[in-house]
């Protein structure tokens, strides 16, 4: 089995194991997608960890796999599923830095295929301006 995960601008197909309504995927895949890793301290994003109780921990993370729905609930992350496509919303703990005024970095590519990140322009003033054709 496999599922397609959507998060930010990423689309990632990962192997999965369905148990009832739960979708278990390799923890490394989730880490690659969202940056969250599972450590003895809990679910960690960089240095910041959300502690997990032992009983809670096993339902969320065991033997190198994570339960996507349980992780999302723990991280207060919106999750919407349509058959084998699962879309993951923002993680409040990650957006906290934005709430404190730090500009979130992004990885997009320009029309020539060159990667563009905000961090390329540290030490400059940046005007980031959205528009649309619609």
């Amino acid at each position: 089995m496999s599922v397609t995960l959507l998060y930010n601008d990423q689309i990632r197909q990962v192997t999965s194991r369905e148990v009832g309504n739960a979708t278990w995927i390799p923890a490394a895949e989730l880490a690659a997608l969202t940056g969250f890793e599972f450590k003895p301290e809990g679910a960690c994003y960089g240095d910041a960890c959300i502690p997990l109780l032992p009983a809670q921990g096993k339902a969320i993370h065991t033997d190198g796999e994570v339960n996507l729905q349980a992780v999302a609930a723990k991280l207060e992350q919106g999750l919407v599923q349509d058959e084998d496509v699962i879309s993951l919303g923002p993680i409040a703990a990650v957006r906290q830095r934005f709430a404190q005024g730090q500009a979130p970095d992004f990885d997009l590519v320009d029309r020539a295929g060159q990667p563009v990140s905000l961090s390329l322009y540290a030490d400059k003033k940046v005007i980031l301006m959205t528009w649309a054709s619609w």
Partner: protein
Amino acid sequence: MVIGVAEDTGGEAAAGQFIDAANSTYVQLIDESHTISSLYNLVNVPSTVWIDEQQQIVRIDEGSYAEKHEMPGISFGRDDYVTLVRDWMEKGADSPYVKDPLAQQHLRVPTQDEGLAEANFKLGVYFQQRGQRAKATQYMDEAGRLNPASWNYHRQNWIFEGEDQARSNWQQRVAARAGYHYYQPIAGVDDSA
């Protein structure tokens, strides 16, 4: 440094011709999954974020037009926007236009409904880009229901309906939301219908 970002699920086919016509010297990106609007809590275009040398956000504006626009029942933008930007370029943190309390309202974690709306919208984008119109509309409708303030969601959802229908939808929705802000408010601009 100016970075222009097209919030267009249609990608190059939708936005490319406008970028060609603008013939700009600054960085132009096409953001097919509205990543920038998500990351910066933006609900409409054109929106502008001012980011200083420490990569701190000092101002966020929605409705950042270069001039004031008047339409029946609604007006938005201001004539002096470029002056504001130039003032910040010269004076930095001493510019009176940074750290505006109204603009700082954007700096918050999304609510649970907004987060779920975003997950629905991204799923809608996924299906829209694969030509699955029914599913795209289903999830974009749900996104708009959960976060009715996002014009990005509504208007991106209407691209299947053609320009005339989209304009009519927009006019109806503006009228139905009389008294609400079409753009989140910025100092000195009253766009309430």
